[in-house]
């Protein structure tokens, strides 16, 4: 019921979903440009460049051996993309929550601007949590790698899915609480998110399942698409269209979570944690 009403609300605001997807696509497109430019000299006059997209991994290793700075550039670009994605994604998510959960009539841009810093702050907290979870995972995977490859990959996938889903749900609660009362301290919003999760276990489990399943599904589809591109299945234009479509689906699913979880947080938090309006 909660999800159904959230889906209806998100479906009624396609432009907001489009904006979320646009953030993702823009960040990736911009992040890829430096690497693309750096590769032009090496690849464009070399017929061997075709090997890169034919599944011949030796070509890729050879390229990285000869131009290790390209790998560094790719990693730096990915790091930067994560950071920019955090900032822009958080701002737009805050605006979306304000409009669709808080019924802010002033429009998306005003809401985005008003909550921007607090949304980025919350995003940073979640980022830190995810990074810590991954670091812990890294230690376990290290123990399994390379002799238990299957187990290492399974553990990695499970942890990414779990960490991502848990942090997404908690963050959605916290964002709604932060938007509901702009004066509420961020730490209190974060604590409140845990309180809401604990007091609304059924709803929280539903959101976790929703997030893990849908995120995993889209992730698999996206990585399959990347794999198809890397071994020359289909044309670039068709693949990019598919990528944009997947980004839209992903944004819509994220928006549904933000709205559904946001409503639960706003409706239930005040009932369990009385708001102190005056002191004696």
């Amino acid at each position: 019921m909660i999800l159904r009403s959230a889906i209806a609300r998100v479906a009624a605001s396609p432009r907001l979903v489009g904006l979320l997807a646009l953030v993702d696509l823009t960040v990736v497109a911009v992040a890829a440009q430096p690497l693309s430019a750096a590769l032009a000299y090496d690849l464009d006059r070399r017929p061997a460049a075709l090997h890169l997209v034919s599944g011949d991994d030796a070509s890729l290793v050879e390229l990285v051996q000869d131009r290790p700075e390209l790998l560094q550039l790719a990693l730096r670009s990915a790091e930067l993309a994560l950071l920019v994605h955090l900032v822009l994604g958080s701002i737009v998510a805050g605006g979306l929550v304000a409009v669709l959960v808080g019924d802010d009539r002033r429009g998306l841009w005003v809401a985005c601007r008003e909550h921007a810093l607090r949304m980025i702050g919350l995003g940073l907290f979640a980022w830190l949590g995810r990074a810590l979870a991954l670091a812990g995972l890294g230690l376990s995977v290290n123990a399994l790698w390379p002799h238990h490859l299957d187990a290492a990959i399974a553990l990695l996938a499970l942890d990414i899915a779990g960490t991502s889903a848990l942090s997404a749900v908690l963050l959605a609660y916290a964002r709604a609480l932060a938007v509901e009362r702009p004066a509420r301290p961020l730490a209190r919003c974060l604590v409140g998110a845990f309180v809401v999760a604990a007091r609304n276990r059924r709803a929280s489990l539903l959101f976790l399942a929703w997030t893990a399943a849908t995120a995993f599904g889209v992730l698999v589809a996206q990585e399959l698409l990347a794999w198809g591109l890397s071994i020359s299945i289909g044309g670039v234009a068709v693949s990019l269209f598919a990528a944009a479509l997947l980004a839209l689906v992903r944004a819509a699913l994220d928006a549904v979570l933000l709205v559904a979880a946001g409503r639960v947080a706003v409706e239930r938090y005040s009932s369990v944690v009385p708001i102190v309006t005056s002191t004696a």
Partner: protein
Amino acid sequence: MFPVVLAIVTALRLAGPLSPRTTSYDMTAELDDDAGVVRGSEHVRWRNSSAGTVRELAFHLYMNAFRDDDSVYWREAGERGQRSPSAPEARGGIEVTSVRMGGVDRTGAFVVEDSVGRLPLETPVPPGGTVELDLEWRTRLPRIIARAGRAGDFFAVAQWFPKLGVLTCPGPDGPAPRPCGFRAEPYHHLGEFFADFGTYDVRFTVPARFRVGATGVLVDEQAAGGRKTLHFRAEDVHDFVLAACPRFESVRAVYPDAWGEIELELLVMPEHAAFASRHLRAAAAALGELEQLGPYPYRRLTIVDVPDGARRAGSQEYPTLVFTQSHDAPEGMHAPEATTAHETAHQFFYGLLASDEIATPWLDEGLAESFTDRVLARLFGRAQTAYEVAGHRLTMLDIDRLGYRHDGAVDSPETRAFAFLHQDSYHASAYAKIALAVRTLEDDVLDPQRVVAGLRRYVERWRFAHPDAEDFVRAFDEGAGEDLHWFWNPVLFDAEPLDYLVLDVAAQPLGPAGFRSEVVLARRGGPPVPVEVDVRFADGRTVREKWTPQGSDPSRWRRFVYEGAAPVDEAVLAPAGAIALDTTRWNDGLRRLPDPQPRRRFIASLGVALLGLLGAWGR
């Protein structure tokens, strides 16, 4: 308990003796599995087959490499940045407690330096003479560090007894006599072993619950008092190894060939049972490839799968027994098969052809690596010998080439094993470069049949002997029917890698009638292997050229010029398949005009992957 007497009393399936049998060992030993100690005694007989008089015997005491930090092994390892483990269980050693000759105690005369023991002879051994002696010793097995030791209840009992070195003096038909001596190198951080052919008669006692694999064949087994004594025999081999573990499961198979049958036994850890068929299949395929070179002369081949905690013993060859390991890899990744294939190939290139693994490591490692590639190609096809997963693939030779291009430009293959800069350089030159060179001979210089003929001649001429680099080259060239010193010299004695490249592709208008096109090829280092190039023109025409930078045209570059209606579009070297030894493939072709399409596709795949990761990370 009743003794079990087996009918087989020889390890050979061909009529022997097959080797000079310079040494013979009668050994009795017992494993104390709690203490990780082997106590043993041996009666050694050695025959002087040289033309010189011998005044000293030298024994390998390899386990002393792990006695303390001052050993040659740990000093060399330290120079390469590897620290000696300080835990007491990581320490090993061998203590020779008694040496007797003809009833005379010579223990005091036995001088131990690092992992070599020397015994001056009171009576020199003349040419053709023999010497016999009895030794007693105690070997403490370290936690597995390099090839031998213990890991829990698994024991790799290797390099565990006093073993004679090799007398390298000329034989009666060789050059004039000179002072002769034993070659017995200490255990080095890089490099393996060298010993002489002979017979082994070994009685080894273990707790009854242990399952044991060993060199040779089991002749007899007697159990008493919770322990059992296994009697093994091996002829015409140059080492003796055992593997013991109560958890081994035994899987047997038979490989039939032109000379009869070979019994295969895989001793596999229960947790790796799913890999059993993969190991046996790889071993059978390896024997199939080796069969082209001549018979495997022994009845049995034992393959020992090591537990996860003993992987440092898990890729090692011994006569008629190899250690392998089960990487937790899906079917599409062929690491388990590669390990078993490589170690099985050593049955020829080390087992039968007992080259000095310290002085000429490439002779066994390089040729075994080359056969690994052949075996995997036989099993999985040439294009995906290392793995084929989700459309991505890599060949073993690609892995060799990538390692070689990264680390192979420092040392030539003909470098003493311990003198290589580091492990990667050792692997790149002694393993990878030789495998790439043999493939280059197959594809671009000779053909597969002539390469097999060359290798077969080498095996026929030098089996049960100690060949060196020149012996190999001479025998190979004879079998292949061609003098290939122009190829072998830069491959074996130079470190400079081969790189062919298209240096330039250009076209200039000649007026309304057409264009003057130019293609420049170059060669950087390595043997001057003939190479073909396809020159493609804008009108769809392709011209195939051949450049043989030898003889009258030894230059490092070659220019091809064309005049015609259409300009050149691109030039691609080795259109039938890249030269295996050519380190760099990126520069094997060049377009006159850029084409950004492949780059865009590559970047798009990276971008979509990043998009997925951003989504998974969350916003």
